[in-house]
């Protein structure tokens, strides 16, 4: 049974309500006030995220809250285990960074700031949702907030990119909903904890999980569903790109983790999980090679996102039915989660750095970057540091994540994934150096900046990149905190 509500459960409700309250207040006040409202909501939201992490840490148990005190299967549960708490904190930190970066950038501030807060609320909803239908609603809210961010400037190209993104996302969510309907029909509940006790390997469960997984992959832009991502992420304004690439694509990935390891802990076979691994490997190779051939900085970074999403899905073949212990006690599982977090910081910093470079130069052609290293040293350094994490060089979060995936691949005797990780790292090194070599080179004629870039914004980019580096000091072993709230024993069908 789902247990009882915990003392600090109200924090979870606050984490969702606060950003949406901010949206409503912004809409009511209108205009420039939206920015002020967001700047008040951001520290408060960060405080709530920290409080959730501390509460999970102190009690060593998942936080739980039942809306209206109605317990599942009739009511809706909010739950935050160690994994949710870490993701909530990551998004709070990153949204504060993006908000500080975006101050005074937009001519239509109301739209950007309300969408930023709406994305935040929807992300928190995804991270704490304990009910598959509730998660569907949160995922749709996230899509509705993320799609307009792509076309903030209203040009035809970005409108087309937004429409394409929306169509992929709608296909994804309707497949997810179809799977949820099948699960409810078969087991009579959508609560994750109740469902995990009732579900067992039979055709309807497989059909439902397959539909939901494919739908989520379309939203996460895993190869071959990546078509929408490069034009959307490269066409958006820099802070919006950082938000989309850093956080929004992580939400569907988080739900795939929930589905595979929480909803049906004992069900997936290794052979099934290999499919996700193959798609991830294809994404890494394809995304990195295409990134190498880009002429524009933002498109290069967007294709790099396609590649880095691939790493997230390498954790499935390595963590499903491990040789010893539970999936979440393997190095690969922790590595996959760390990759999601470190990529969030690194990619957001990279997109913001690219935004500053494009602002200063008036263009983002890689061939024309010569001399920018001297004009914007802090920004280019931040770009390099986040590149370090994408390549997987120490000390960086990307290194720890990829080292754990490698360890997992060796420990599970699936050496081919280790090969993919290493080749992907080499290719990432290639496209990062391609940019840095240009940026640090001497210009043929003196560089003329078309706009001045404030030190404050450069410092914000640097701070976000440093977060990705600091994650490199995480210990190279399965984290105890991430395992909080995961069942130790008594899982049906698991060993």
């Amino acid at each position, binding site marked *: 049974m789902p247990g009882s509500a915990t003392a600090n459960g109200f924090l979870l409700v606050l984490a969702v309500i606060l950003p949406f309250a901010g949206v409503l207040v912004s809409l009511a006040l209108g205009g420039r006030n939206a920015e002020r409202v967001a700047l008040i909501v951001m520290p408060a939201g960060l405080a709530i995220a920290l409080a959730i992490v501390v509460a999970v840490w102190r009690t060593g148990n998942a936080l739980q809250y039942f809306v209206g005190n109605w317990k599942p*299967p009739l009511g809706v549960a909010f739950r935050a285990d160690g994994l949710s708490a870490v993701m909530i904190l990551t998004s709070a930190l990153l949204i504060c960074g993006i908000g500080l970066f975006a101050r005074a950038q937009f001519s239509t501030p109301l739209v950007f700031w309300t969408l930023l807060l709406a994305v935040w609320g929807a992300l928190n909803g995804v991270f704490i949702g304990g009910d598959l239908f509730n998660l*569907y609603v949160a995922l749709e809210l996230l899509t509705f907030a993320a*799609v*307009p961010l792509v076309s903030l400037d*209203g040009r035809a190209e970005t409108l087309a*990119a937004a429409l394409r993104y*929306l169509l992929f996302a*709608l296909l994804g969510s309707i497949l997810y909903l179809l799977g949820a309907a099948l699960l409810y029909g078969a087991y009579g509940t959508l609560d994750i904890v109740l469902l995990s006790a009732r579900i067992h390997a039979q055709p309807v469960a497989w059909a439902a999980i397959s539909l939901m997984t494919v739908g989520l992959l379309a939203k996460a832009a895993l190869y071959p569903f990546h078509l929408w991502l490069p034009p959307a992420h490269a*066409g958006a304004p820099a802070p919006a790109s950082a938000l989309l690439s850093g956080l929004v694509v992580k939400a569907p990935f988080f739900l795939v983790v929930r589905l595979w390891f929480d909803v049906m802990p004992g069900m997936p076979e290794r052979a099934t999980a290999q499919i996700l691994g193959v798609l991830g490997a294809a994404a890494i190779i394809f995304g990195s090679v295409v990134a190498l051939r880009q002429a524009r900085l933002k498109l290069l970074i967007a294709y790099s996102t396609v590649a880095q999403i691939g790493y997230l899905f390498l954790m499935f073949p390595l963590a499903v039915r491990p040789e010893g212990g539970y999936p979440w006690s393997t190095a690969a599982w922790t590595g996959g989660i760390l990759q999601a977090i470190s990529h969030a910081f690194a990619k957001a910093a990279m997109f913001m750095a690219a935004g500053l470079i494009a602002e200063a130069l008036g263009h983002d052609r890689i061939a024309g970057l010569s001399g920018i290293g001297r004009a914007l040293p802090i920004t280019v350094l931040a770009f390099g540091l986040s590149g370090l994490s994408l390549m997987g060089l120490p000390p960086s979060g990307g290194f720890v994540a990829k080292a754990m995936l490698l360890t997992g691949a060796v420990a599970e005797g699936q050496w081919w994934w280790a090969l993919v990780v290493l080749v992907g790292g080499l290719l990432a090194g290639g496209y990062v150096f391609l940019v840095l070599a240009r940026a640090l080179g001497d210009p043929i004629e003196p560089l003329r900046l078309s706009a001045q870039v404030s030190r404050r914004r450069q410092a914000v980019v640097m701070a976000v990149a440093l977060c990705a580096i600091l994650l490199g000091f995480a210990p190279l072993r399965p984290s105890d905190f991430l395992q909080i709230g995961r069942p130790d024993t008594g899982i049906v069908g698991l060993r």
Partner: protein
Amino acid sequence: MNAATLYGLCSAVLVGLGLYGLIMHPEPLRKILAFNLIGGGVFLLFGVVARRGAAAGFGGDPVPQALVITGLVVAFASTALALALLVRLSSEPGRANLPSEGSGEEPMGGGPL
């Protein structure tokens, strides 16, 4: 064959037709309509599930009906958003035709930032 099976098959047909339309038709408006067709199929499936009384075994399970109402609102909102984008896109100057498969992507760069 009882009524629940018949409606279940209908919903499968609707989802199949919608999927075909969403993947095969290049025009965005048809894709949006196809998405609504899939939505209709899924909501019908929820109706079938409710009729079978999956949760408690009684005649009509109210939970799927509540889910359908929420789902309808979400589907309506997404259709509205997609149509708004489409209207805006078709009124953009310098763009005679709507994006077809592959035209929104710029694989080798090019095009403004």
